[in-house]
């Protein structure tokens, strides 16, 4: 099972084991990582699983995700993503996921 690393807004690093095929959002919740709200449960409908990733292995933003990223609580940045739209696999081993100050 791939390991990814969540980095809190204060810099704290928190490695987490993800199920193969699980979203970054689910991986945060199931590892009890703070900083993800995920109101809509993974439907790309609420933008409260906002994360920052800067890793060329991650597939690009989809059109729906792109539009919902305009609804994030902290301003969108070039690496902004919805955690529910990134699916973890062995190819993403060691992925670093930064969390924003707030989701609301």
């Amino acid at each position, binding site marked *: 099972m791939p390991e990814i690393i969540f980095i809190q807004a204060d810099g704290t690093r928190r490695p987490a084991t993800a199920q193969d095929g699980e979203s970054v959002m*689910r991986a945060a*919740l*199931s*590892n*009890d990582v703070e900083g993800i709200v995920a*109101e*809509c*449960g*993974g*439907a*790309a*409908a*609420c*933008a409260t699983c906002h994360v920052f990733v800067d890793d060329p292995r991650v597939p690009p933003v989809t059109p*729906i995700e792109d*539009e*919902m990223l*305009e*609804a994030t609580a902290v301003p969108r940045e070039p690496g902004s993503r919805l955690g529910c739209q990134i699916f973890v696999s062995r190819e993403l081993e060691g992925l670093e996921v930064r969390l924003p100050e707030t989701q609301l």
Partner: protein
Amino acid sequence: MSAGVVVLGAGQAGFQLAASLREGGYADPITLVGEEAEPPYQRPPLSKVFLKGGDGPESLSFRPPSFFERHGIALRLATRAMRIDREAARVLTEPGGWLSYDRLVLATGARNRPLALPGAALENVVALRGAEDGLALRAALARSRRVVIIGGGFLGLEVASSARAVGAEVTVIEAGERLMGRAVSPAVSRHFLEYHRSRGVVVELGQTISAILGEARAEGVTTTEDRDIPADLIVVAVGVVPNTELAEAAGLAVDRGIIVDHALRTSHPRIHAIGDCARFPSAHGGGLTRLESVQNAVDQARCAAADILGKPQPYEAVPWFWSDQGERLQIAGLTADAEETVTQGGPEAFSVYCFRNGVLIGAESVNRPADHVKARRMLAGGERPQRAAFAS
């Protein structure tokens, strides 16, 4: 030490209330009482991805057990609340006996409206509410070829879309003249009618069911036009009724929901009600309103938590909804009372802006998330946009 907060109902609202109390620094005990055996979980995926996939209920849980331990939130699962004793500030639970509270929060949700028809109790006549229902429906879909869905609202249509995706022949029977008639404008109803029909779903409008056919198992339905539609699975999705019995028995004001004020307090000052079971004065039109949505459950939980923490604020959050039926529908605001609409966009992706007294009250967006996001911002602002600002 205070007896703390007891929450009846461990769904989206109850879970969020407990989490928000701890986030806000609440230090006394919190007990979350839920009838289901599962730890708190998300319901929306049940009609969508959960039906099509192979994941178990654990894939739906809000947080792992460590979260509840770390935050000192006691879970009393598979536990039913039998009675509220207001005088003694305690709740009778089964199993578990009496549970004292300082503050009580009713997050009792809603249950499916039963179908009062002969044959409704046959085993292949099912409804969807909890994770157990989801598992049962998924298994039933896998061995069924012809599915009849009674009710063309959000839930019925989401199940229709999922059932079609796993290869079933699907008929949706809706009593109203259009789909999702209580929730969306005619243009959106029309779009989804065409969409579902284009995917091979048979949609019968203006039809009701007079009987469910079959002896041991349901074999179909008879419509009020005396037409028989064969089926090996029947899904009932005709709305919900709020769970208000406990509140009513405790002498709280109840009228099609547990009546609450702007801070979500019931007629008894130590008892709040939130989520699907609460009828509240809406800041977004429509007077006393009861909403069944994730947004309402979550935001009311936050609002009630703030009140319990001594920082009351009126409940004014903008309502929003979504439904994934293969096409993506997102609604901001309450649009049922619209007098006028303006549609922007093309046939595949558009938004219907809804106005009352010349002022924006909501927007229904089909495959246009950006419009939805903007509409939510507009409705949250002090100054509502005028009709004149929207080009047709």
